[in-house]
């Protein structure tokens, strides 16, 4: 029964702490500079600051300012045209200090070698990804997220590859590799192969998505675990989050991956020398490259470290799913056409030149209202939550992050009330033709969107196609309407997100209760909005401006009168 047992008080205190943003922990910049300089690097610092659109409750930060420290090992007899990056994010506590130590040790070792052909940048970032983002933007002299940062004084040419290192504890029993980057971008498969080669060589235990690699593919267990790993990767890639500092490098076409040292309380432990040896091997191999990694695949799915599914194999699946939409649209077009030319001509004129009669023109004009309204709804979903957070916090006893999430949900749910408003706007001359035309437009719109998404981020495209396509194809105002309505709601983007969270936790072998799942859902919403504003992740605008309005059109078709 302490002070913080009351949730309102606890929230108020949390808000106070967020506002004050007291520097409870800061990067020991001077020490790092000294340490790097003593090793023989060219040391520079970069200070940055960023005010988040609303307080980040999971990381407990709002107004962030920090300093990145980086040292450059200048390659002898090279003109600083190419470089490699070893980056270590330093969090708000000293969890990653082991990695900083390893970085300094590697720097000291690398400095004594004479074979370097590319400069090596040893980067220690503060506030994990925010620092990485600030550094990358300053390095490439762009400003895409509104980060305020001081310009970099030292540069080292085009970055060829980057490795991020996170060691959560001083005992490492296995190394986990993460490839999924911002907006589902992946590094070249060769970088992963390189890592795997050195893991095998050094006898390191490597995991992918936290799953051990089973060598036995003859029994059922191997493929089953492969499938689990594959599903985990699909879910991760679909989320579009940068799953580690490497994710931000990929935007600048720098091949990068994150290595995480995991302590899973196994018998056999590795000391940091083994990890360092693997890293040294990777850097030496990358150093010898004449061109940047380009030979292997950029689009792949990984069921295991040593196996991959190439784009040629998985893309037809998405293609066939989208074909359903195309065929359905064609069918509707034929039906519309027949209804347009009248019953006496319907039999003999299915030609490719549809006569545009005046009734068709009226039908198209009646589509403008639902299209505009659903798009406006999407726009409101995109803009209002962040814009209206202060209004919400003044009138309701909620924190800013909660306000954003609740506004999101409220606007999302409000969209369901739309058909009752729009059907009155439209003319009721040809009700049947009306919904057909609307559904035709919605189908083409959905197919186009899903096609584009699948090309850039296959996992997201496939996940959305698999859930939305059946409901979209089935929906019509006649028939078992409650069933269709339930199906539509279950396959709406938000429901897909909720389902994915449950599936994710299930695959991680940490199943969720319903309440926990809901909490995780709210957190995921807030994180999604935040990541859009801080790193430029595209999932939130994609869902709110593209797929949600499209989904509303189908909802509209269902309740057409």
């Amino acid at each position, binding site marked *: 029964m302490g002070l913080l047992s009351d949730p309102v008080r606890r929230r108020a205190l949390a808000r106070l702490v967020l506002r004050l943003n007291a520097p409870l922990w800061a990067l020991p910049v001077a020490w790092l500079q000294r340490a790097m300089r003593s090793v023989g690097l060219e040391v520079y610092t970069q200070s940055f600051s960023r005010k988040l659109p609303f307080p980040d409750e999971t990381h407990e930060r709002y107004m962030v300012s920090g300093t990145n420290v980086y040292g450059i090992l200048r390659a002898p007899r090279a*003109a*600083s*045209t*190419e470089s490699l990056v070893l980056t270590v994010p330093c969090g708000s506590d000293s969890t990653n200090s082991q990695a900083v130590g390893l970085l300094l040790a590697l720097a000291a070792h690398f400095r004594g070698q004479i074979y370097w052909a590319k400069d090596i940048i040893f980067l220690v970032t503060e506030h994990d990804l925010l620092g990485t983002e600030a550094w990358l933007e300053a390095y490439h*002299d762009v400003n895409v997220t509104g980060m305020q940062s001081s*310009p970099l004084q030292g540069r080292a*040419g*085009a970055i060829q590859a980057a490795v991020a290192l996170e060691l959560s504890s001083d005992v490492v029993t296995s190394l986990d590799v993460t490839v999924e980057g911002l907006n589902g971008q992946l590094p070249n498969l060769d970088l992963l192969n390189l890592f795997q080669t050195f893991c095998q060589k050094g006898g390191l235990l490597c995991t992918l998505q936290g799953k051990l690699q089973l060598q036995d593919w003859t029994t059922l267990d191997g493929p089953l675990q492969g499938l689990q790993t594959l599903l985990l990767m699909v879910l991760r890639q679909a989320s579009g989050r940068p799953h580690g500092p490497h994710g931000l490098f990929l935007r600048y*076409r720098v091949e990068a991956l994150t290595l995480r040292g995991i302590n899973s309380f196994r018998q056999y432990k590795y000391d940091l020398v083994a990890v360092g040896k693997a890293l040294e091997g990777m850097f030496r191999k990358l150093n010898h490259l*004449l*061109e*940047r990694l*380009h030979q292997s695949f950029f689009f792949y799915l990984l069921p295991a470290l040593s196996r991959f599914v190439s784009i040629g194999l998985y893309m037809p699946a998405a293609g066939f799913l989208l074909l359903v939409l195309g065929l359905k649209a064609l069918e509707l077009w034929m039906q519309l056409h027949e209804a347009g030319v009248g019953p006496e001509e319907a039999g003999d004129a299915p030609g490719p030149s549809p006569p545009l009669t005046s009734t068709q023109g009226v039908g198209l004009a009646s589509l403008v209202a639902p299209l505009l309204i659903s798009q406006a709804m999407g726009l409101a979903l995109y803009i209002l939550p962040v814009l209206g957070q202060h209004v919400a916090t003044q009138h309701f006893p909620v924190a800013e992050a909660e306000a954003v999430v609740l506004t999101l949900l409220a606007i999302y749910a409000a969209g369901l009330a739309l058909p009752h408003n729009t059907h009155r706007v439209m003319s009721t001359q040809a009700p049947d033709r009306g919904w057909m035309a609307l559904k035709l437009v919605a189908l083409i719109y959905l197919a186009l969107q899903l096609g584009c998404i699948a090309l850039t981020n296959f996992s997201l495209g496939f996940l959305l196609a698999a859930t939305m396509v059946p409901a979209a194809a089935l929906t019509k105002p006649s028939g078992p309407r409650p069933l269709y309505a339930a199906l539509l709601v279950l396959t709406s983007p938000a429901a897909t997100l909720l389902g994915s969270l449950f599936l994710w936790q299930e695959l991680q072998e940490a199943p969720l209760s319903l309440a926990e799942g809901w909490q995780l859902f709210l957190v995921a919403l807030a994180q999604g909005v935040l990541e859009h504003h801080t790193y430029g992740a595209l999932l939130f605008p994609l869902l709110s401006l593209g797929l949600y309005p499209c989904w509303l059109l189908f909802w509209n078709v269902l309740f057409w009168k």
Partner: protein
Amino acid sequence: MAAAVPLGLLVLLLLGPVDWGHAEPPRDSLREELVITPLPSGDVAATFQFRTRWDSELQREGVSHYRLFPKALGQLISKYSLRELHLSFTQGFWRTRYWGPPFLQAPSGAELWVWFQDTVTDVDKSWKELSNVLSGIFCASLNFIDSTNTVTPTASFKPLGLANDTDHYFLRYAVLPREVVCTENLTPWKKLLPCSSKAGLSVLLKADRLFHTSYHSQAVHIRPVCRNARCTSISWELRQTLSVVFDAFITGQGKKDWSLFRMFSRTLTEPCPLASESRVYVDITSCNQDNETLEVNPPPTTTYQDIILGTQKTYAVYDLLDTALINNSRNFNLQLKWKRPPENGYIHYEPAQDRRQPHLLEMLIQLPANSVTKVSIQFERALLKWTEYTPDPNHGFYVSPSVLSALVPSVVAAKPVDWEGSPLFNTLFPVSDGSSYFLRLYTEPLLVNLPTPDFSMPYNVICLTCTVVAVCYGSFYNLLTRTFHIEEPRTGGLAKRLANLIRRARGVPPL
């Protein structure tokens, strides 16, 4: 008095023949001037000064005829036996940090300080009455000056004019910080001027512009001064000053260019006919901020240089009594323009021609000290022709380093040396003279990634095209090289040929 009359007669005698027909020479004179000072912050300060000087001794003479000197103030001096009077009304605060030192500092609100003659018996009573009268003259709340806000400073506030003794008993000083200065204070102040606001510089005193500024200070200073070099008798001097600072941001819409019309919404049309001197000064001292110089239009005929407040200043002088100045254009609108000097810059740019010559950009830049200069060039990534890719296209394409050639001023002046006798390394550096040395720097080359197609695909394409070409070529070759000759039509119609085909298929000899 005895000395004053012959002197007056002497003046009369000297000036009589060239006088304007008056019986008495003008014993009073008016000099007016306006100083326009561009301030370091980009704002502009305008300071008016009207000086009326009267060669008479107000206290001792029963003066009844006033010409240029305002009667209201003259009577005040004789009635309250004033020696000096300083009154200022100020709205705003002079920002010394951004505007530099002012000509005349004044506190915000109303300030009044007075030296009385030593003949005054009850100074406090006179002070009280004086402040009330001044309150009426200037429409200000000076009547609120009483013993609670009056002090008698002993060290500061020495008499500014002629004074025999400085007994602080006769000094009174008061400040009313709350006093709000407005048009009602300006109007009586303007009425004290001989030309009022009808002609001369006072035309510019338009209330709505003067109070639309960031600083406004008007003041009246009365003091006795020496009439001549030997100081045998005294004259009375009335200085009316008005300082305003125009806000560059509000008034100029962000531009730093000024003109009289833009500042005062008036131009000068004629000098005050009563004034013996009427001038406009513009501070054209080159302040080396932002490498800009001030250009005034019309160009000044004369300039005036002096050391003001410890710094050397140059002023452009415009004499309104000079008929050429106003007659030329009927009105006189002084314009101030900030001009960046042509940065003795040299930019040479040769655009690239695809596959024939590269871009060449040469710039001559003068860099300020301790600064960072960033030169960035936008470019677009384009696809090359497929034969133009190097064998390692994914390595990137090199952009050659930039060259920086500089003539750096030397810290230590090198003495001219005998080239033959000096060490060999001296001759490596081409030195023009001792004061500077030549330096050439190169930047690192830049590696740019161009969009590179997947070269495994062209391979497939080549294979496929070759197949297609081979097939087409083969058949065309056949068609073109083979000779065709017409076969004689066989006897029998279509039916017979069909029958023959069937028979051939069956293996039966044809018909």
